[in-house]
């Protein structure tokens, strides 16, 4: 017969022994790493916060703080973002390019992702390679090549907004493909097969089953394309014809090399907030649209192919 074990009292360890254990605990948090990480995070983010802060500076200084003011946003009648045409047009141009980029690159990219993921015939390997190449090409190489192709080959396209849009879409497509393809892999073919099994034609299986399941990836890639387009400097600069076709990054660039006013900080802050807003919305949309799938499959990073 088995009996319940007798209660015994464990020996007490001295405070010194326990402290030593706390220090030497291999699974406890290494204090050094914590320090480095938080130091890095502060170093990474605080300068930007300071720049944001100075966009609200009452004086013309970007380095010496006076008091809170919105003059650089709309207050100052000459130099604020609202009143300075170069700054205002730069904002408009940036949003124009980003919007056009999303509207063109996302559909192209979704189709390309579907095609590359399912196509295994001749040419699919080369197509996959072509799709991946923009991701590893330095922007200056792309800028030079686009500038030259528009000046020597496709001469009907001049530098300016159209050329910039064409350039933006070209480097954005690959991002869409990677994001959507990751989602495709995590979905698999089972839902389309189940749909066909239940009587759905291939068209219905694609539109009523696959597309709704791809929506999180489509939304997320739209947000990503917006962000990388808004941030783009090199392609926009190389294909710009000056004036109204300059974007916010170009304005910031030229301003930092001259003697800028805090209005530069202001325009940068506006773009920062817009981009973060859109990225956050995209992320929340992803989470919302995949809310029924968590806990069963791999995490979001895994689905993105990271």
């Amino acid at each position, binding site marked *: 017969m088995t009996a319940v074990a007798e209660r015994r009292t464990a020996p007490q360890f001295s405070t010194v022994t326990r402290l030593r254990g706390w220090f030497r605990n291999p699974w406890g948090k290494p204090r050094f790493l914590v320090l480095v990480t938080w130091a890095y995070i502060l170093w990474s983010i605080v300068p930007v916060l300071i720049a944001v802060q100075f966009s609200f500076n009452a004086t013309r200084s970007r380095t010496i703080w006076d008091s809170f003011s919105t003059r650089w946003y709309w207050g100052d009648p000459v130099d604020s973002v609202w009143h300075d045409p170069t700054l205002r047009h730069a904002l408009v141009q940036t949003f124009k390019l980003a919007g056009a980029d999303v509207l063109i690159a996302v559909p*192209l990219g979704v189709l390309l992702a*579907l095609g590359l993921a399912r196509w295994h015939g001749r040419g699919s390997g080369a197509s996959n390679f072509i*799709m991946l190449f923009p991701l590893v090409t330095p922007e200056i*190489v792309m800028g030079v090549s686009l500038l030259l192709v528009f000046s020597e080959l496709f001469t009907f396209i001049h530098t300016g907004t159209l050329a910039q849009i064409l350039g933006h879409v070209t480097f954005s497509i690959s991002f869409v493909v*990677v994001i959507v393809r990751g989602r495709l892999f995590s979905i698999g073919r089972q839902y389309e097969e189940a749909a066909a099994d239940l009587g759905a034609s291939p068209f219905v299986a694609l539109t009523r089953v696959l597309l709704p399941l791809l929506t999180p990836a489509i939304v997320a890639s739209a947000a990503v394309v917006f962000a990388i387009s808004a941030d783009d400097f090199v392609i926009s600069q190389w294909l710009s014809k000056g004036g109204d076709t300059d974007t916010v990054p170009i304005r*910031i660039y030229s301003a930092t090399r001259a003697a800028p006013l805090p209005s530069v900080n202001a325009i940068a802050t506006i773009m920062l907030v817009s981009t973060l807003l859109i990225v956050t919305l995209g992320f929340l949309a992803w989470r919302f649209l995949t809310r029924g799938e968590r806990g069963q499959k791999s995490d979001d990073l895994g689905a993105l192919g990271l």
Partner: protein
Amino acid sequence: MYRRWLWPGFAFPGILWLILLFVVPFYAVVGVAFGTVDPILLQPVPIWNPLDWNVGWLNEVLHRLAPGGIWFDVGIRTIVYVALSLALCLVIGYPVAYYAARHAGRLKGLILILIILPLWISYMMRMLAWVNLLQTDGYVNRFLTFTHVLSQPRDWLAGSSSTVIFALVYGYIPYLILPLFASLDRIDRSHLEAARDLGASPWQAFRTVTLPLSKIGILGGAVLITLPMFGDYYTPNIVSQSPQTSMIGNQIDLYFHGGPQPTIGAALTFVLAGFLTLLMAYYMWSIHRAQQDVGAVGAL
């Protein structure tokens, strides 16, 4: 289930776009680089037929990059900047990625967000932030003089190599930390526990288990930041107004926007692209080797 032409059909528009606006432009670079220059209009005359290519300009560019040429220093400097920046990024980034992946516990989500955040902040704004801080009357100088590290404020933005390297590190490090994090996050905790169980000290376990398994992440991150860095010209231009810190990218920029002499610019771009292709091939080979060691199956 689906028609056989459906998937290639879907892929067609995107591939056509990429061919017209990505592949063909490369050929435009080659055509100009191996072309001639109209002596009267001083315009580049591209040569499209490979059999008629003029290697004169390519030779000129290689000449200038060789020891003794006017670009030799620039080339060496670029390589040094990139190498040092990569090293610093690894030294700072690896502990951060390691902590976030393995020790963050409940704060992991928050730390991940904070690490990813800079990726969404415009590069220009991040540079702008430091340009402001590094002004003669900016916070950096004020802090350093206040703590008596410096006796006088220093001009950080006038041709200082260390400022350029600092800016490159600041700008590119988030792109290194992310793949590193992903790679470290994937390492199964049980591998480390097995190592400790078999008698390895924490440092030995790190060296023999974690480090090799994270090699793929290190290589991936290195590719992600060094290739663009070689073409960077705007960072030196922003934080240093001096030709003493110019990189290869600056030369290309000069010959297109400063001169302009597009043919030389194209030839230099061609050489840069060739160099980067070799570098890329080396990376791919290393990653392939590392994957075989680990038995991992990874792909884009």
